[in-house]
């Protein structure tokens, strides 16, 4: 279970402008440590965003996404009080879910 995400959303009409920050090393598996040993790959593979429990946005990503990933996307049909929940899962099976209430 990773560190908490930071989710921000701004409502513009019925569109939620979402920014999410995730704490993750996004290790490529190509780098070596100081001792010359390859640092194993460790990266988020899948992300999904749910609005009131319904999946509205998903991403399948690779280790080419920067360390401590940042994404922005826009969800349609949102209103104040809606629950926005984001979940990621990495290549080791670790996952993390965080939720915010829109317009709060």
């Amino acid at each position: 279970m990773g560190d908490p995400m930071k989710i921000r959303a701004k409502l513009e009409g019925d569109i939620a402008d979402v920014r999410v920050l995730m704490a993750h090393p996004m290790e490529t598996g190509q780098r070596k440590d100081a001792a010359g040993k390859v640092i194993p790959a460790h990266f988020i593979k899948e992300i999904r965003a749910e609005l009131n429990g319904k999946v509205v946005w998903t991403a399948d990503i690779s280790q080419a996404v920067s360390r401590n990933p940042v994404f922005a996307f826009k969800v349609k049909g949102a209103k104040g009080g809606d629950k926005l929940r984001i979940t990621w899962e990495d290549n080791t099976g670790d996952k993390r879910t965080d939720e915010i209430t829109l317009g709060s």
Partner: protein
Amino acid sequence: MDYTRRGLLRGAGTAGALVAAFATGALRPADVFAAWNKSAFDAKSTADAMKALNVAGAADSTDIVIRAPDIAENGAVVPIDITSNIPGTESISLFVDKNPFPYVGTFDVAKGAMPYVHVRVKIGESSNVRAVVAAAGKYYQAAKEVKVTIGGCGG
């Protein structure tokens, strides 16, 4: 939260069949989650990755707008905005042609998101970044060059 993701997403009973069905699948409408497309992510060229995703031959389109720096300050964190003005856009995929593994990922917007994404990626050397959009069963693409300098020991 404590649930098994595969079970939640696909229903435990049909997961295997669906994985098989989508293992070579294209950037399809988001009825179900696709399996993370290993062969596309492992591809060493954009062309091979696009083949693995069944989107080879995507048509050039000026309706895909890529906003990325002409010169990136740091190749470790290159901000990229992609907006598709193609009606019926279902997903946006991103490639960095010169990266050892060019396929960065696919953002599925069909189930309730706008055809837009902001993402930050690693770019090893000056390269085209390429967006491929799936819309109404067709595929479109656009590219933009990003130069990467390796500066001094800044801080």
